[in-house]
């Protein structure tokens, strides 16, 4: 827990987009519409790109090694309440930050909202909330960031969404807010128990880890925390807000919801549940593993019957996040590392899918796969990029999606064999619905209206090119990423094992003699 550096990297990372949001919101209208638009666009892009540069710097400075927290910023701000501005990054959050920071500028560039004052302001605030959630190590601070994200999404959906956007926005808001209520109660309860035991009131995660909790209270608190996270992710069966929200939000909203905010749920489970309630995690693992597997299969099955492309991707997301839940509760190094990798990979893949689907909508005015056909003929580059993202989602080795899924499944197999066996069937389902969708939208001879469609412009190619390159790179050479994630994961797994007296399977830690190395 040392202050590695004088420069408060993480504080700036969080505040930069927040301040930019205020700046954008304050751009006066009397500048005239076109000037205002240009200023908004410049500030928005500048801030998100600067944040990305900062995130890249943090990643580069983060050397593989022990798995503890780095770049700590720890400042008491309300001693009487025990709340502090406590930020830190480890292998588990590092690449989530980078992924989020990469997506925001691209989301701005991909859509047509990049010069809209309030939309850009909301997006910047959203970025601050997302990044803050991934680096906050104080429970109240985390809760704040976690909640703040609801608001921009709500306004983005109602302002620039489509379909039944008001219904979907309210549903999203109330559903996740209800989940958060449990989280808040849980946080306060943990802190009070800790205060009762030690005499200090604190919301510091590391300090709270030493709180002694009986099995029953661990389980209750675990359920309270997990309620919020399961809704946010979403975990089956708390997912029904997500197809509505993903479908009716504007492209930027869908991307952030599915790629970044969903990870706040699964990240919350890993960061808080595993370290605060290890006993409950081990005891309830079968339940959560089952929900993960159910999500994998159920999301895939429903996706097979879905015609609306955005809803189809929403259900595929449910399926892919099931792998994260599975890997997490496998409680092995491979499973958990795979889960973290899957979070990052899923974010990258689903961002490409939503962006491309948005472009299809711009060209053809529909998300209904049955109403589209033959798009590959006039738009081969668009088809090629969709194909790549699709194959990554299907889990084709050589692309990033495979790495996470394989690690999750092999890590689950060594500790909870039958869950892994059933979940492996999920890889068939992904191929089933995605290839169906591809055939509908891109194959056959195009109708006249489709035949006139323009292929991607250079600007559009430039927007997805970074994502495409990262998808390939992480599939071919994931070692630098794995080397940074694994130590933190091992630390967490050992922590759970120590607290509960369980033992990870020998093959997963490499301590078996049969490994022969």
């Amino acid at each position, binding site marked *: 827990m040392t202050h590695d550096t004088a420069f408060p990297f993480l*504080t700036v990372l969080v505040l930069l987009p*927040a301040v930019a949001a205020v700046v954008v919101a304050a751009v006066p209208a009397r500048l005239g519409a076109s000037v205002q638009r240009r200023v908004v666009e410049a500030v928005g892009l500048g801030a998100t790109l600067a944040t990305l540069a900062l995130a890249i710097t943090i990643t580069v400075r983060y050397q593989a090694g022990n798995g503890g927290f780095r770049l700590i910023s720890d*400042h*008491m*701000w309300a001693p009487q309440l025990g709340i502090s501005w406590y930020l830190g990054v480890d292998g588990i959050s590092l690449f989530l930050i980078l992924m989020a920071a990469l997506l925001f500028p691209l989301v701005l560039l991909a859509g047509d909202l990049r010069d809209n004052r309030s939309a850009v302001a909301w997006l910047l605030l959203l970025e601050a909330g997302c990044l803050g959630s991934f680096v906050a190590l104080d429970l109240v*601070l985390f809760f*704040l960031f976690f*909640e703040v994200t*609801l*608001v*921009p999404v*709500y306004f983005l959906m*109602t302002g620039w969404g489509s379909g039944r956007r008001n219904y979907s926005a*309210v*549903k999203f808001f109330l559903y996740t807010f209800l989940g958060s209520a449990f989280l808040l109660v849980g946080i306060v309860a943990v802190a009070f128990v800790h205060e009762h035991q030690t005499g200090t009131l604190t919301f510091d995660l590391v300090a709270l880890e030493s709180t002694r909790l009986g099995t029953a209270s661990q389980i209750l608190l675990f359920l309270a925390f997990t309620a919020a996270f399961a809704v946010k992710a979403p975990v089956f069966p708390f*997912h*029904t*807000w997500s197809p509505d929200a993903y479908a009716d939000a504007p492209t930027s909203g869908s991307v952030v919801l599915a790629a970044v905010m969903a990870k706040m749920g699964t990240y919350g489970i890993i960061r808080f549940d595993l370290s605060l309630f290890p006993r409950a995690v081990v005891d309830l693992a079968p339940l959560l593993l089952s929900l993960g597997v159910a999500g994998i299969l159920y999301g895939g*099955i*429903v996706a*097979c*019957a*879905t015609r609306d492309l955005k809803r189809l991707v929403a259900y595929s997301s449910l399926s892919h996040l099931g792998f994260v839940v599975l890997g997490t509760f496998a409680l*092995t*190094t*491979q499973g958990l*590392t*795979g889960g973290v990798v899957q979070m990052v990979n899923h974010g990258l893949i689903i961002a490409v899918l939503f962006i491309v689907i948005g472009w299809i909508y711009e060209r053809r005015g529909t998300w209904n796969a049955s109403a589209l056909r033959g798009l590959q*003929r006039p738009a081969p580059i668009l088809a090629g990029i969709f194909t790549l993202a699709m194959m990554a989602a299907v889990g*084709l*080795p*050589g692309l990033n999606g495979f790495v996470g899924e394989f*690690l999750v*499944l*092999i890590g689950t*197999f*060594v500790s909870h*064999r039958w869950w*892994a066996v059933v979940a*492996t069937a999920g*890889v*068939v389902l992904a*191929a*089933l619905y995605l*290839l169906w969708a591809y055939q509908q939208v891109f*194959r*056959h*001879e195009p109708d006249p209206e489709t035949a006139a469609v323009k292929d991607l412009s250079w600007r559009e190619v430039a927007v997805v090119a970074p994502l495409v390159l990262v998808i390939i790179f992480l599939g071919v*050479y*994931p070692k630098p990423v794995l080397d940074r994630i*694994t130590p933190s994961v091992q630390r967490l797994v050992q922590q759970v094992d120590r607290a509960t007296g369980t033992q990870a*399977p020998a*093959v*997963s*830690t*490499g301590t078996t003699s*049969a*490994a*022969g*190395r």
Partner: protein
Amino acid sequence: MIHVAYVMFLLPLAGFAVLALFGRRLGDPWAGWVATATITGSFVLACITMAGLLGRPAAGRSFTQVLFTWLPVGGLHVNVALLVDPLSMTMALFVTGVSALIHLYSIGYMKGDEDYPKFFLYLNLFVASMLILVLGDNLLFTFVGWEGVGVCSYWLVAFWFGRDTAASAGKKAFLYNRLADVGFLIAMFLVFDKTGTLDYSGIFAHVSAIDPAARTAICLLLFAAAAGKSAQIPLFPWLADAMEGPTPVSALIHAATMVTAGVYLMCRMNPLLATSHPAQWVVAGVGAATAFVAATIGCAQQDIKKVLAYSTVSQLGYMFLAVGTGAYEAAIFLMVAHAFFKAELFLGAGSVIHGLDDEQDLKRMGNLRKWMPLTFATFIFGWLAIAGIPPLAGFWAKGDILDNAWARFPVLWGLGLLTAALTAYYMTRLSALAFWGDDRWRAVLAKHGHGQGDTGRPHEAPWVMAVPLVVLAVLAFFGGALLLPWHPSWTPLGWLAPVFGARLYDAHLSGATEWVLGVVDAVVALTGVGVAFPLWRSRPDRPALEPRVLQRSYFLDDLYDAVVGRPGQALADFSATVVDNRIIDGAVNGVGRLARQVGSGVRKVQTGFVRQYALGIVLGAVVLLVFMATRAWA
């Protein structure tokens, strides 16, 4: 020199990259020449590596080349690494050789196609994947190639995606394989669970650490994957549909190389397979049954490519029969010989299809030997080789497998012999229908209005297509020489022995028995030819010999549709409309309604409720954040 083995798969990969970036600018025919050049380069490298290996003593002909670490997570450590040994190099050699010929052929065959560069793009990626598959030094890297060839097959089968049947066939091929690959994945998990490694050498060093039940399970799971890739019972229906792809694709992927990957995998895992008798039984039994069933279907097909497709399924069945018997060398021998003569047959069929303006119906061909003499002359070699007429390659290869079956599983030998008769029969039927009889194609070409002063005659292929035909015909003839004992201490296939050990069953057969079995094989083959030729030369329509059940492949597609397809769709629809909408979401909305009724006072401000609430949160949060930020720097 053998340390540059990895360049073998990097060359086609580089070709893929070049074509992806500049393919459209290169265009027809330069894209094709670039692709062909990279594969030829790989072939040359394979020859050099092979020579390098042969220059070493027999015990030192296996080495691992680590390129980089791929997945290092805790106890799991997977490298991107190549295993260069006699088995992988035999595979690499014939894969690159046949690929180079088919690339050359494609330059002519695909001429004028609007996606010409893209065809070679996929083809290069395919060869790279196939080389990764055979050269991988661990199960997972092999799996990379395994999936890579699968996805290339998907793209190439659906290459003419404007046709609905082609688009569906590509998807079908991918899904069947994906289903089978579940077996591959679970087998890997089980191997890792038992041995802590996925490297072949590591697994084989710890075979004794795996309990017998797990050994059988691993072998059967891998065989499930192999049955998908190599189109065995019950997963073979996709291969017939895959004939929707351009004919060079059928020759390369769906005859010579990719579909043999399952056989290769089982051969590679031979140290494990040899320890599980139940698994050997299953492999041999399924192989023999598939050989027979597919041959019966082949007897009644009307599409020239579908006959060849079912013939491929049948020949792959023979290979699995050999694998299950423990005769791995025999399996590899037939694999190589089959690559030669089946590629020859497909390319010959492609030449016919090309010459008849895309006509594939055997009943509309006839008497083509007069019009396409070169195609006919080369086709004969493929036909007689697969029929098992001595001294062509097929006779030796099939004989080797049947001898081993005789020694180990006599019942399966009987089934195999029956299949041999059928093979000779259906191939003769095909040849007779295409090359003898009346000029039934005249109606086709007249209908196509074969204009521009052309006399409406079938045309012979250009030289780029003719050269591969001739080369493959020669190989189909002389391929049997691979088995001949050239020197007491050296036979070409004998160099595989270090990989497979001495597990050949025909070693127990006496010389006299081998002679008798060989004569039986020859007589059976000649009988098949003798029965079919007069029947099908004189008349193209013999409904009694083409029962519907065979034409429709025992109604397997209908069966799967009824048992899996439609119930699956019904389940998906039910889940989407009833479970998700009414039950899960219904419960959520129910809770919402309940809450609203309880708090009826809220109803009045309902419209602005969330909005005000949301603004309240954000304002509060901003105040808090600003406060905290100021404190943070205090």
